[in-house]
């Protein structure tokens, strides 16, 4: 509340935080500065929690005080369904559900952004001029220092596989990962990893052998790790882990050395956006150097902009991990993720491998 008070004193900014559990909808309103014309508004729908979104909106408001911004925080699923029901409601959609965002753009629901910043944006982080990745978040492992002390360093997937296979009894029930059947993110990582290497299935089998707990969100896994219920967490969202574990020295975040998936939050401007000009300004800000620097400084989300450096940014991570980083490709391969039969086939395989324990 300290920041809120400071802003209220300035009298420029009024932040309204309406938390209503009934509709599971949080909104954040940033009114326009006094004296600006009416009708200048911007509606942002995002799957990004308010603590991370607030500094971005404040930074945007500093540059464009004439716009009244309304941010609505939704789950990725709610955001997607709300858009399909009312495609003319939001000006900007911001979501970490990459396949869904990609699908919307693929079907022509997105409006192209033609600006110098958009043209300079790295090709791997955008699709056409319609879909822009604005964050760079590696998928990490979290390992309790006790495990490292006892069984040695865990630097990558091969180490994890060896650890699970050798010490399955010691780690039984103390490992946690995403449940691909209930978590969209977990499913996306599973499909990407299975494409990267067939040894992924050995890892799944090993995880199953260790009676790995299955969680639905990164937050859930982090809580279990902090509480000490779990010793090893596999496939956690790096940005959340970095922020949450800042004061937990017993838990080490491992960005795998052999390969590390990188997920990105995708932003698009709907074709029927009510305020397309304002939307273009906001997106331009998000991919501009100012916005990205702010994103790197004040949020745990990694910045993509090549000129922005610092912990967690794409530039620094690449210097550190180089070729091992595997950003999820913004391409039609994401459509396969959404295929129902594909999903059934993959989950069936996953379940089969996970429960192979009895055969050994």
């Amino acid at each position, binding site marked *: 509340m300290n920041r809120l008070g400071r802003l209220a004193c300035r009298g420029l900014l009024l932040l309204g935080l309406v938390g209503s559990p009934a509709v599971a909808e949080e909104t954040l309103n940033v009114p326009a500065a006094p004296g600006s014309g009416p009708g200048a508004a911007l509606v942002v729908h995002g799957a990004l929690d308010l603590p991370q979104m607030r500094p971005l909106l404040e930074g945007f408001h500093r540059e464009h005080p004439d716009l009244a911004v309304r941010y609505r925080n939704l789950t990725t699923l709610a955001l997607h369904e709300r858009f399909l029901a009312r495609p003319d409601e939001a000006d900007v959609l911001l979501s970490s559900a990459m396949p869904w965002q990609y699908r919307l753009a*693929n079907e022509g629901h997105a409006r192209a952004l033609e600006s110098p910043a958009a043209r300079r944006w790295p090709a791997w982080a955008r699709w056409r001029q319609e879909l822009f990745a604005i964050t760079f978040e590696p998928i990490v492992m979290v390992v309790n220092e006790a495990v490292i002390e006892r069984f040695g360093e865990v630097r990558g997937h091969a180490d994890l596989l060896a650890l699970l296979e050798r010490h399955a009894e010691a780690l039984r029930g103390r490992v946690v990962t995403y449940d691909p059947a209930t978590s969209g993110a977990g499913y996306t990582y599973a499909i990407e990893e299975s494409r990267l290497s067939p040894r992924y299935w050995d890892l799944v089998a090993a995880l199953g052998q260790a009676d790995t707990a299955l969680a639905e969100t990164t937050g859930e896994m982090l809580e279990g790790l902090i509480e000490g219920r779990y010793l090893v967490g596999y496939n956690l969202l790096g940005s959340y882990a970095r922020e949450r574990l800042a004061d937990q020295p017993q838990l080490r975040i491992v960005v795998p050395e052999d390969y590390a998936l990188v997920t990105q939050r995708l932003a698009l401007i709907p074709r029927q956006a009510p305020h397309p000009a304002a939307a273009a300004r906001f997106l331009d800000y998000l991919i501009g150097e100012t916005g990205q620097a702010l994103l790197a400084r004040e949020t745990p989300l990694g910045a993509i902009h090549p000129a922005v450096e610092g912990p967690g940014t794409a530039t620094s991570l690449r210097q550190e991990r180089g070729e091992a980083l595997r950003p999820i490709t913004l391409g039609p391969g994401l459509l396969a993720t959404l295929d129902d039969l594909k999903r059934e086939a993959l989950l069936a395989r996953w379940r089969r491998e996970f429960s192979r324990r009895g055969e050994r």
Partner: protein
Amino acid sequence: MKRGDSLYRRLLGWLLLPLLVLGSLILIQAWVDAQRTADRAFDRLLEAASLAIAEQVQWQDDRLWLDLPPAALEMLATDAEERVFYSLVDGQGRLITGNAALPGDPRQGPGDADTLLYRHIDWQGLSLRQGVRRTRLEEWRVREPFEVRVAHSREGRDTLAARLWRANLTMILAMAALATVGLLLAIRAALTPLTRLRRAIRARDPRTLAPLELSLPRELAELRDTVNELLARMRRVRANQERFIGDASHQLRTPLAGLSARAELALRHDDPARWREALVAMQATSARTARLAVQLLSLTRLANPEYRPELVPLELNAIARQAIRDHWASCHRQGVDLGVESAGGEVWIRGIDWLLAEAIGNLIDNACRYGGQRVTVQVQAAPPRLVVEDDGPGIPSQRRLLMLRPFHRDREDVEGSGLGLAIVDGIARTHGARLKLSAGHDGRGLSVALQFPGDTP
């Protein structure tokens, strides 16, 4: 000068126009070709993707099953980041899976063979190229037909087609530029002889009528020869004029010299009777000279090709009778029998009455002078003719044409100017009539006929 009047521009226009039409056709053809080539290249992607998907189709849990290979979709998107759509449809047209309900292959195929259809479709406002693969599952017991439908947007094709076309365009434009330059040079070279001819004509002395000596291509050589013919005619005309002027001045000098001599002779005497005699003679001479001058004047006027007097309808019998009345007295004095033979009815021609009267007068005068005793003026109807016939000595047929030349006299002993027949010839030409000299009735004398244009039977 008007724009269209330049031979250079006209040639250029008529040569460039077909070139332009041809060029446009080539451009259109190049565009169609580029699109076809791009489509052929990119259709391979549709083929490969649909095959990759079809190969993954299985029969599982009593239904069609597809483990969609992401690479199949990724190969449909090139650098141009195409939008990609796919669907799997069973034999009954039910959608098994896919991200878009794409239309199927409308053809009623036999269903056995693996068929592939490419086409353009508009799907939800997007312009797509679609590939539909119709095939069937070949398992031990299941023969299930199905269709794999894939489609992608056209950006990659359009980019490739545009690039191919631009490459062609550059070549075609370069060729057109070369052709135009060649054309300009060719026309300039072809028109050079014309410039030479112009310069040669301009550089000539305006008084000379010498032929043009200049080697030219065939088409212009004809023009040069025509000009040379014209020049030759002008040389002849000028020679005729010079001779005529010489003859005329000679003719006028003789009576004037006579007058001068007569006056000088009379002045040597003091006798008024001599003076009177001389004056009478001088009056006769000067009257003759005046008549000569009148004849020269009318001949000059008739010889002028620009002289086009207006012709009016005339009745020939009346003209002939009037001439008889005018000349009867003088003929009678010389003892010549002057008669007229009119035609049965009226004979109308177009002419000028005083010129015809002059012609008849000249002919009667000639007939009397050259020894005719009996002169007949005849009018004939069809064709309209005016004939003056005498019974004099006549003119041998080989000399008759010479008689038409001015100042030519058949006999030097008879007094006359030698202009009479030349004037009649001029009058005949003015009327568009033919002058015909022949022997008179039963081979004696001379018959001069003016045959007018008109009802020639």
